[in-house]
């Protein structure tokens, strides 16, 4: 089986994000970058399938030079080769524009399975993977926690609301967008990084792919969320207050 994994590089989770003077994007200087977490789970699922069934895992990522570090991380963790779509205007593209880049490269590879995260941690549109499926004319499923290879194709576990799951069977080739948390991520190793140096990393440009297009959706402005603090005092005895707190944590904060 040949698996393509589409990965995005996003600002590191606890990086101090500041809005750029243009007001339609963040200040990228001094930021540290990391692999988009749902994409890391997509890669992990691909690597597990590779370990079980001996697949080839190809990583595809679009973005400027700096994306190379995330691609090397993916190779270090076990991907076989990578394609870097070099473009400096990634954040100027809408989801369709990015999906066109990815689809153009993936089409050349003709994989049996395309995996990507269900959304990115920076803009979080959640559309790119689905549009790629549409552009490739492949069936797709979203919010997938686990993928199983069957004789007919794939059986996948899909997350629904409120702790419900759905099991779906679909033929290959297919596109799946992965939810975080289905597996345990592996850590990058020194041996992986050293071995990654000898792996193939091909670079293509948007122009070479013929996938340039004017965006149909334009990001006009971004703003920091307004800080909100609301304190509630829970009346009654410690026991009653604790019960009320648990109820609120469950129903209002939804952290339990």
């Amino acid at each position, binding site marked *: 089986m040949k698996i393509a994994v589409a990965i995005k590089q996003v600002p590191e989770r606890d990086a101090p994000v500041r809005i750029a003077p243009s007001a339609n994007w963040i200040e990228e200087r001094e930021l540290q970058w990391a692999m988009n977490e749902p994409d890391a789970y997509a890669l992990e699922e691909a690597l597990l399938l590779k370990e079980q069934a001996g697949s080839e895992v190809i990583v595809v990522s679009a973005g400027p030079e700096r994306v190379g570090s995330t691609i090397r991380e993916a190779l270090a963790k076990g991907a076989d080769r990578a394609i870097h779509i070099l473009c400096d205007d990634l954040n100027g593209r809408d989801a369709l524009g990015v999906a066109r880049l990815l689809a153009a490269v993936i089409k050349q590879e003709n994989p049996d399975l395309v995996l990507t995260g269900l959304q990115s941690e920076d803009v979080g549109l959640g559309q790119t993977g689905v549009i790629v499926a549409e552009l490739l004319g492949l069936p797709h499923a979203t919010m997938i926690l686990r993928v199983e290879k069957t004789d007919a194709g794939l059986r996948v576990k899909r997350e629904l609301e409120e702790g419900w799951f759905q099991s779906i069977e679909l033929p290959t080739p297919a596109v799946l967008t992965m939810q975080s948390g289905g597996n345990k991520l592996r850590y990058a190793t020194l*041996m992986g990084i050293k071995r990654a140096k000898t792996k193939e990393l091909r670079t293509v440009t948007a122009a070479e792919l013929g996938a340039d297009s004017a965006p149909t959706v334009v990001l006009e402005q971004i703003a920091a969320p307004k800080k909100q603090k609301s304190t509630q005092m829970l009346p009654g005895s410690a026991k009653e207050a604790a019960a009320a707190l648990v109820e609120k944590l469950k129903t209002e904060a939804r952290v339990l």
Partner: protein
Amino acid sequence: MIILLPNLAEPQHFSTFESGLFAALAAASIWAFWRRFGPIFSKILQSKKDPGFQLFPIGRRVRDFVWEVMCQAKVIRERPLVGVAHALVFWAFCAFALVTLNHCATIFGLGFLDPAGRFGRVFFYVAALFAAACAVAIFGLFLRRFVARPKWLGAVSWESGLIALLIFALMVTYLAAFFVPGASTAARLLWWAHTITLLAFLPLIPHTKHLHLILSPFTIFLSRGGFAEIPPLVGDEDFGLVTGKDLTQLISLQTYSCVECGRCMEDCPANNTGKLLNPKEIVLGLRGYLNEYGPHSEEPLLSKYNSQEAAFECTTCGACEFQCPVGIEHVPIIVGLRRGAVNTGAWQDDQGAKLFLALERGSNALGMSAAERDKFIEKNALPLFDGTQEYCLWLGCMGAYDPRGREIVVALVRVMRFLGASFGVMRKERCTGDPVRRLGNDLLFQQLAEANLEALAQSETKKIISICPHCVRTIQEDWKAYGTPPEVEHHSEFLARYASQLPPVRDREKIVFHDPCYLGRYRGVYEEPRKVAALAGDVVEAPRSHERSFCCGAGGGLVFLGEEKGERVSHVRAEELAATGASVVGTACPFCNTMFRDAFADAFAAKGEGAPELMDIAQLAARGLPE
């Protein structure tokens, strides 16, 4: 006076048959010795060369050799009574070198020490004194091994009994020769008894742990120096200790030098709380591996002879290495085995992976958002370091994110402000890499060390002060692999320097100070924190203190893993500290602090009693400050 004493009796003439017999026996003895020692010797030589090994400067080596081998200082210091007994045996052996050479030479008529001559007489008497002391000492050691039987020595070893007997016989046959006439049959019989004992002793050496007799002087002389120093990885194929091919000459030499005395187990936190890890067995495991597979094998080191579980139970407290009398460096070996497992991805541990991912994707080992650190800095109005202040106050993960660690930082800041010391904190800090360094993740450690070194160089930091002995050690020693770190000191050193300027506390308490491993054994700082603690009360000592301090259980990255087996290390130590009756437990490491806090909460909540107060020395120093 000397005239009145009897002379050593030596047979005057030997027959050709006797000389021939001696030559044949000696040849057989040497052959039996070499048949065993030869392969060991070649295994050591054929092991990988130690990268970066340099014989010079040789001064340190000579000093270590004289102090640890000739003077037996470490052997005696750590176990005085047994140590002196051992030293007497060792010194007798040294004195006997010339006696034995002369003894063997006499059979060919080549004896060079005349029992009646002036030098010969004096020398033989001196040797006799050593022989008498040695006979008593070896008898005492025999009683210890077979009657007292401390658990460190493991199962009863009959070969040790045999060796003791042979040594005793060697001494007795020598001493007895003073009391028989020179040309008598008795003198001849004693000569032969002494000779046969000697020739039986020689081949036993490489077959038993008495191999240390030959190897350990070299092990100590050739040691890399420093304490618990982790060697650099060299080249693209070095991932730590993965297979036999990764064992270096010094490691092989060390494994064969082990004398199995078990001192390494004495204060080992893992071994004392029912874990699988036994530092002695780690070393003997490598010896077993070398014996079976040899230094060119591709068989994994963590399989038949050593287990991954044991390797990852080490807190890197260094109690083993600190005590080892034959120069074995346990910590680099154990960390080396971990490196081999982590750098190749063989180690799979949920909590370990969680720590690694937290540091791959974020800045701190606790997995918190860096914004939390910014909030703490803002709330306490900590100035940012801009290159003009004297100290860069390194917060560390515990100081920046842990509520208790923050209290320590705040207390230190109060004292620094009182003293008028100028300081600032980094705008952004990453974990120094201590836990991943000790867990063997070299990739992550390099990334963290390089990012921090670059940030510190940009801010032109000259001097760092930190509340965490782990940060201090990692910055000062481990970062060296990737650059030149700034000068760094632990807050106990700073506070002790200014202790006379700090107002002492009125209501004095009884304080027991717990020596953190990374401050004591690793840095040699023992008195400074006590001097600071003494500002707030009378310092008493725990049963295990100073260099024999018992670990809190947090080091080596273990605070981030689950402690699954046996008793909890922190609980054992916390109870020991509480049992001193002190009202305050003084600490100097945020990790010790957090470990004991949990232990006290567990132990004393169950009993319904009040636990001793847990205070960092910075908090004790701040107690006397005006509000």
